[in-house]
């Protein structure tokens, strides 16, 4: 009896196997009839770039043209390929009154309040070295960095990929001192 059972099982298995072939063909047919996903790129613009990770950019704060960056340098330290350089702003030269106030405060034993602006003077970014690993973003204490959605970045020389992200941010906000050459990627980013 067991032989019959085994044979029955084999036969049933075969039938179900054949049926699975039909199911597979059906899946193929369904996909064949569904619309395409691929965008014919040079002729049509790509719109679904929400998940695209382009080069880095500074996240804008509430005041336009200013980033959230506090020039702590954590990103540059964390960067495995050393593509970031944060140039801190120099402390402004104190006016005579301020200097006096400072001296007074010192005399009182108070710690002087640092008046140096936190935002970076320059945020140099070498896209040719960047591996888009995102370590800088993870290490940023204030969340000042993000990937752009720009898929259309192109340039003729290596220097085209050396950005000053502060300048990029300013260009985006349309502020004065717009420097076209400094930021080829600016203004095109989407998403």
């Amino acid at each position: 009896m067991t032989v019959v059972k085994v044979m029955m099982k084999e036969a049933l298995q075969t039938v179900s196997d054949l049926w699975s072939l039909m199911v597979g063909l059906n899946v193929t047919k369904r996909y064949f009839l569904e619309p395409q996903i691929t965008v014919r790129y040079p002729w049509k613009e790509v719109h679904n770039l929400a998940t695209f990770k382009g080069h880095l950019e500074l996240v804008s704060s509430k005041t336009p043209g200013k980033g959230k960056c506090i020039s702590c340098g954590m990103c540059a330290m964390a960067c495995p390929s050393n593509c970031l350089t944060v140039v801190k702003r120099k402390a402004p030269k104190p006016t005579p009154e301020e200097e006096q106030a400072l001296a007074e405060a010192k005399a009182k034993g108070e710690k002087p309040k640092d008046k140096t602006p936190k935002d970076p003077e320059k945020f140099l970014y070498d896209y040719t070295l960047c591996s888009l690993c995102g370590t800088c973003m993870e290490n940023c204490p204030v969340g000042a960095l993000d990937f752009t959605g720009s898929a259309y970045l192109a340039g003729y020389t290596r220097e085209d990929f050396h950005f000053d992200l502060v300048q990029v941010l300013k260009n985006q906000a349309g502020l004065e001192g717009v420097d076209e050459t400094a930021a080829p990627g600016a203004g095109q980013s989407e998403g």
Partner: protein
Amino acid sequence: MNAIPAELLHIVIGLVAVAASVGLIGLVMVWVERKVAGHIQRRPGPFEVGPSGVLQPLCDALKLVGKQLFMPLGADPILFWLAPVLAFLPVLLLFLPLPVGDGLQALDVNLGLLLILAFSGLAVLSVLLAGWASNNKYGLLGAARGVAQSVAYEIPLLLSVLSVSFVAGSLNLATVVEGQGTWPWNWNIMTQPLAFLIYFVSAFGETNRAPFDLPEAESELTAGFHTEYSGMGFGLFFLAEYANMVVVCAVATALFLGGWHGPVLPGPVWFVLKVSSLMLLMVFARWTFPRVRFDQLLNINWKWLLPLAVANLLLTAFFVKLAQFA
């Protein structure tokens, strides 16, 4: 000496027509395959050259013709170039006995089916010579696989074809078609469904199409027996593969799907329609099923197709005899 005999003239014209149509079919099939594959994977396929990329295969063909012909060191020069020619020439002969329409047949021979079976066997030789002569291990492996496969799959193919010709009582394809009716329930597929299934599966094996494309399995043998071929050498193998596909589909149409029979439309249109839908099915199968392992391939043949084909043939013979007595 009198004029050239009419029969010979008929064959020559048929050959020329066949050669032209084989080239055309090859080009169209390349385009269809790439387009269908693209759509199945929800991408456009070729679309740059010509409307929807129809001229793409033509450009590819031009590229192939223009390419330098390479021969590997230590290869057998005569056999190396003989192989692609041997792959292509018999295929032209295979088209001759195909009945496209009522009376539309290049060569109306009594043994048309036998001719097709005999000359499709020559394809094995080309695979074998190509693999051996190119002095390449992948080539040789592909050739060994190809030969083992085609020799094995020829048997159930032959048996399933035989069971149809038992019913029709003829080896002439046109006669077999005439024995069938206009509507699908008058076709041989209704009386011989198992034979059709066996024939179609074996046809995959015979034409080296995926999922049975082990002689040219890219992932393990680079390109199998035609690894070393460049330019038109490769092009001829390619053309022969598609032409072979057309032949097996046309034979299946004539034997099982009523050939040129069909309502309303004229015969040749029905024939072409049926052949192209079968070919579309083959393309679909290629992009649906994963390639089988070689032992699985041979197991399918020897353990399933062959016994089933023999049983089918015996049953058919029994019923044919019974019908004669009745």
